[in-house]
């Protein structure tokens, strides 16, 4: 009998072209997503070396990081920042010169690269998917090996359709139990990272499994895999099942007819074999999980909404203690504070972590008929044009607008504040994004990572709310 293999080992094995050195392999790349920020220098490199794009049809381009979330019907002219505009123009020029498919700003399909990949069926199980963006781990929710790369690697993929990679190790995170009402996969991943830390996954691919994962929708799985990188992992991975297949069936880039049948036949084999060995394993039961909120400047600084902010003095490790003291100082918080007493000025619902239709539905459902606190500016930025259209057809847009939220055009927006959507210094934000680093959403801005329901409820109250206890 063959040695039992993990899901990761199976996908990896089918993409190895050859071994280039000890534990180093030349890997075939099936799908490549490009955006405006990390690709210009790669195309410039190709040109300088007189190289061509090997397989233009395997790359898909979209602008998302620096685009404004207003006046989208003006297309590229909506970008008032000249340097940002030049970057998008450069993307458009590079893609057109190299015959790569581009989803323009004015298309209803435009959106955040990690939202449009799955929506278009570009993301499919059993493939290798890369993008010059760390949150490429999102696509692992479909049972594809998906990871973020730098610009030199973007250039390498364009020129060769391959990457030289060290083989990562296998990690499994098993999650069992039924979530309480209004607790989400965002709360699970914040809990996991708070326990294992931001460096635990370094050099590993994490497979998520267990009853909770089986119960999850594709959207919830994407949120989980999206933040694998925040645990330091190369990629997150979930075995594909009927939910995955149903999601993909009939989408523009998904396999069709005979190819669909062949694909399904193969995809059904994409599971970890019984007895396969993982280098590391963690297990969580989430039955009693409360909504999570981060209090510091690292995604590992998360606590349940009803817990108190930790005291740095309880840490014996000097570096850790100093890092917590620095975080609390930046965040304007004290040990022992309760998150429920902390008032906020901004709310951001969106990003590749939580900008999908289910996220907007859950948030809208919770706040229906209520008004945003007068101290709060609240933004909803749908992850793509299709999400926006769907939300509008379901009346979700109206609920947000009536409550006093701003309803924006798709893009990365305030997740990283490369466009005009930013925090002012000292402003505190309940954000559904993925990183709470110092200055990420704007210099001096204070980011608290939360789920869309917690974000929406907090917008109404003006401070953090326990959505499992209080109704509005």
């Amino acid at each position, binding site marked *: 009998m063959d040695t039992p293999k993990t899901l990761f080992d199976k996908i990896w094995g089918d993409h190895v072209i050859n071994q280039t050195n000890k534990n180093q392999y030349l890997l075939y790349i*099936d799908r490549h997503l490009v955006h405006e920020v990390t690709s210009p220098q790669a195309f410039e490199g190709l040109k300088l070396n007189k190289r061509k794009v090997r397989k233009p049809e395997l790359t898909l381009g979209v602008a998302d990081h620096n685009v404004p979330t207003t006046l989208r019907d003006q297309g590229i002219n909506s970008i008032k920042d000249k340097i940002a505009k030049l970057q998008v123009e450069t993307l458009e020029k590079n893609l057109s010169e190299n015959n790569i498919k581009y989803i323009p700003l004015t298309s209803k399909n435009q959106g955040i690269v990690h939202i449009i990949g799955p929506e278009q069926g570009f993301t499919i199980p059993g493939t290798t998917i890369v993008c010059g963006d760390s949150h490429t781990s999102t696509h692992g929710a479909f049972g594809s090996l998906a990871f973020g790369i730098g*610009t030199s690697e973007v250039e390498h993929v364009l020129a060769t359709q391959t990457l030289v990679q060290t083989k990562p190790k296998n990690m499994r995170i098993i999650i069992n139990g039924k979530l309480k009402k209004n607790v989400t996969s965002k709360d699970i991943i914040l809990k996991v990272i708070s326990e294992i830390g931001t460096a635990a996954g370094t050099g590993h691919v994490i497979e998520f499994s267990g009853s909770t994962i089986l119960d999850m929708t594709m959207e919830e799985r994407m949120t989980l895999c999206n933040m694998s990188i925040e645990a330091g992992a190369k990629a997150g991975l979930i075995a594909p099942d009927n939910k995955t297949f149903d999601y993909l069936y009939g989408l523009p880039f998904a396999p069709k007819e005979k190819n669909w049948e062949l694909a399904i036949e193969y995809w059904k084999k994409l599971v970890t074999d019984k007895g396969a060995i993982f280098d590391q394993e963690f297990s969580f039961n989430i039955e009693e999980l409360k909504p999570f909120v981060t209090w510091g400047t690292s995604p590992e600084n998360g606590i349940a909404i009803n817990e108190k902010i930790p005291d740095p003095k309880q840490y014996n490790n000097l570096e850790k203690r100093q890092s917590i003291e620095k975080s609390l100082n930046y965040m304007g918080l004290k040990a022992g504070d309760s998150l429920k007493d902390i008032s906020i000025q901004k709310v951001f619902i969106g990003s590749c972590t939580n900008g999908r239709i289910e996220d907007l539905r859950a948030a809208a459902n919770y706040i229906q008929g209520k008004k945003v606190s007068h101290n709060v500016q609240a933004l909803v930025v749908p992850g793509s044009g299709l999400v926006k259209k769907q939300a509008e057809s379901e009346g979700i847009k109206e609920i947000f607008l009536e409550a006093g939220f701003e309803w924006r055009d798709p893009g990365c927006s305030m997740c990283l504040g490369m466009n005009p959507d930013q925090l002012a210094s000292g402003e505190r934000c309940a954000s559904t994004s993925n990183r709470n680093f110092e200055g990420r959403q704007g210099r001096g801005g204070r980011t608290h990572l939360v789920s869309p329901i917690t974000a929406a409820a907090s917008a109404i109250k003006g401070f953090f709310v326990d959505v499992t206890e209080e109704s509005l």
Partner: protein
Amino acid sequence: MKKFTVLKGIAAFMPDINIDTDAIIPKQFLKTIHRKGLGKSLFYNERYTEGYNKNVDFILNKDPWSNSSIIIAGENFGCGSSREHAPWALLDFGIQCIISNSFADIFFNNSVKNGLLLIKLNKNEIQKLSELAMKKESFTVDLINQKILVKNNEINFNVDPIIKDRLIHGYDDIEITLKNKQLIVDYENNKNKFHIWKNIVYEKQ
């Protein structure tokens, strides 16, 4: 890529753990379409108070560390986004080597592809080197012999032989891969591995 053999210079000690790529080069500088010119904005939020007014307390604004070519950093350096602008900014400033207990994966790959040497050492070694750095001692990083020499101290380090070879010779990765072009073609024609359903057929517009 610039070759890396022996580096002599001053080392700045930045003890914080989890120094992320947003801290190394904030988002407003990612709109550039060039690799050069980012050094001025390296560590922008900590290095400047407003505009480009220097924060005098920041180590890279103090002599002699304003001329550092080495950083000794807390663990998990370079975590966060995949922006290659981080190593570009470090190199453009003049940093050619970073020593830490651990590095984030993507940052590690991005750095070695640009000729920035990353050295992993244990905490005791880092403690020792950080004390010497604070005393403004001159460091020699000898990649060929895998040694760091400071005053009377000598610390050996490990480096992946492939990375070492690439840094010493300044090889271009793409050129190396393209030498195996036929292997890529063979893979694409291997029906057992390269599944037909993966092909993308454009819908007629």
